[in-house]
């Protein structure tokens, strides 16, 4: 029973930052922008939140500042790909490298420092249930907010005008422009939202789960996030499912260790990366599925017609 509680709790903690950042990336990609700088944005969010919490002890201020810091970096990325017509792959890599470097520099004085973990918010009644109570309902608020945001985004994409305009922008920017919407503004806001979410995800890691800062803290999660959107075929509900499956996979390695199987630690560290490759391969196999679900204009430079 203890083990099950541990598995459930570990899964949702590992999945939460992946889900939050992936939902942000989903919005950006739905509008037609491939943002490959998530890793750098999560690092910057993580370090900004960590510094705020270390100095003020205010966790929600930390989450907010983490989100804003990453959003500023996202604004730079958006200006380059939207207004300066930069190639999205190269620009994403460039801004990602920049963000990682900035995080390392800003975080230098805090290297290996720790903060007390963000206080949890046990849900009344439910948190007293056996096994699942402590496994699922005794976490920080962000853990419950992540799936709620997923549901909200699913509803927005499916049933609201905002969602429709966003999707239309990703499918056919020319048409969206022709019927009177400003493609660049829609995309700019989507990328900013993506940056804000990546920053919150980074903040979650530095102040709620790892509770420390060190250079390389994000450890490739930003890339797993980009993979999750492909995995989820650009649908909020499947992205969420993917995030929890990945969370479970990372917990699996701890379990293997705890039952005393001798496996090199480096192999266990590699498990999420290997799982990502396998997942991408299996899910991309059906080319039709990708073509049908991927936003048509994803990754293309859009230049306004005159």
């Amino acid at each position: 029973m203890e083990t099950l509680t541990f598995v459930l709790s570990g899964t949702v903690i590992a999945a939460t930052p992946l889900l939050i950042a992936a939902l942000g990336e989903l919005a950006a990609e739905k509008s037609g922008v491939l943002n490959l700088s998530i890793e750098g944005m999560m690092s910057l969010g993580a370090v900004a939140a960590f510094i705020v919490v270390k100095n003020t002890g205010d966790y929600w201020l930390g989450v907010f500042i983490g989100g804003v810091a990453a959003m500023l970096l996202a604004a730079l990325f958006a200006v380059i790909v939207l207004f300066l017509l930069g190639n999205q792959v190269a620009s994403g890599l460039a801004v990602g490298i920049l963000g990682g470097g900035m995080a390392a520099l800003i975080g230098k004085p805090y290297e290996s420092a720790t903060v007390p973990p963000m206080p949890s918010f046990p849900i009344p009644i439910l948190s007293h249930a056996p096994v699942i109570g402590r496994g699922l309902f005794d976490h920080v608020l962000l853990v419950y907010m992540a799936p709620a945001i997923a549901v909200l985004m699913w509803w927005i994409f499916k049933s609201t005008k905002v969602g429709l305009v966003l999707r239309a922008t990703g499918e056919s920017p020319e048409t969206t422009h022709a019927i009177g919407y400003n493609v660049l503004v829609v995309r700019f806001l989507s990328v900013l939202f993506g940056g804000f979410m990546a920053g919150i995800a980074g903040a979650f890691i530095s102040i709620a789960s790892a509770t420390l800062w060190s250079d390389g803290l994000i450890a490739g999660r930003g890339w797993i996030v980009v993979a999750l959107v492909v995995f989820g075929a650009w649908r909020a509900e499947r992205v969420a499912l993917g995030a929890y499956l990945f969370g479970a996979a990372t917990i699996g390695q701890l379990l293997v260790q705890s039952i005393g199987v001798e496996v090199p630690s480096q192999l266990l560290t590699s498990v999420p990366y290997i799982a990502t490759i396998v997942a991408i391969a299996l899910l991309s196999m059906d080319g039709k599925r990708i073509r049908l679900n991927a936003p048509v204009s994803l990754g293309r430079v859009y230049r306004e017609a005159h």
Partner: protein
Amino acid sequence: MTRTPWTIEPRLGGAGRSVLIAPVAAMSVTVLIGAAITSSLGVSPLRALYFLYIAPFSTLFNFGEVLLKTAPLLLIAQALAIGFRAKIWNVGGEGQLILGAIGGSLLPIFFNDSDSMLMLPGMIALGMTCGMLWAAIAAWLRVRFNANEILVTLMLNSIALQLLYYLVSGPLRDSTGYNFPQSVQFPDSAMLPLLITGTRLNASLLVGLAATAFAWFFVERSMIGYKLEVGGAAPNAARYAGFSETHAVWLSLLIGGAAAGLAGVFEVAGPLGQLQRVVSPGYGFAAIIVAFLGGLNPLGILFAAVFVAVIFVGGDISQTSAGVPYAVNTILQGVLLVSYIAARLFVDYRVRLRAPLRFERAQLQWRH
């Protein structure tokens, strides 16, 4: 309501001499931002500029370091550019370099007392093969399963690093080395010859220059290079002409893997002299920046490689002489690519401010 206050039109008929504007502008911005960041850390701006950009040329040893770091950047960037022109995004140079370093270390570790003439050629062959095999995973997954090569090569970077950590702390560790995570020292037969005494510069620079010449020939004169470029610029036309995308993927990734693998061998057979936990200060990533900064052009890449090597060496000198954190180095690489991409807009396109709308007044006059 949806009008932007400016218009952007492509420049037709090629950009001509103005292609130089973007890299020069990007480098200037990087020089200034580098000085600004370093001086914000308490180093005077002039000293900062000196450490970052002048000191790398100030002594023979330092200049040797610049050229030593130019070699792997040049080698990898030339190969990556071939793929990038075909829009095949191999961002796994770092992992392929690591595999090359591992493969290149096997012979000198297991035949440590050998002074065979075949040692270096064998290391190079093994290292290149390992780099190619690592890249082949991504190529195969892309061709067979349509898996996105950006994500796969990135994941392979992380896995390669873990593989290296495992090997140097286990099977390939020097058993007499007090448990340090590193291999035995390589014998002299496994070391690249030095080019200039008093520096660490070795023959890898010559290979980098040869790769540049080869890349120039490949791009400008060969049919395969042409097919790759058409595949990147106009995929439908390429398909119609019967140029195979599968071939393009395999070729781009294998060339990239071989070059990065070779660069990995040169690290262990050059400045390192053994296999360690750190075999590269990020050459595989920096080479991506070099490839773009050089405009994906073989000659441009040569200059870009030297400039990025200067940032590496200048960053090292700033760190040791003035305690500037290494992260500044990473930031400058990011700034360099960001400002290059931004500057390209003004080379590839003509940007004009729109005349303000006179619509209402014209209408009013018409009514009168």
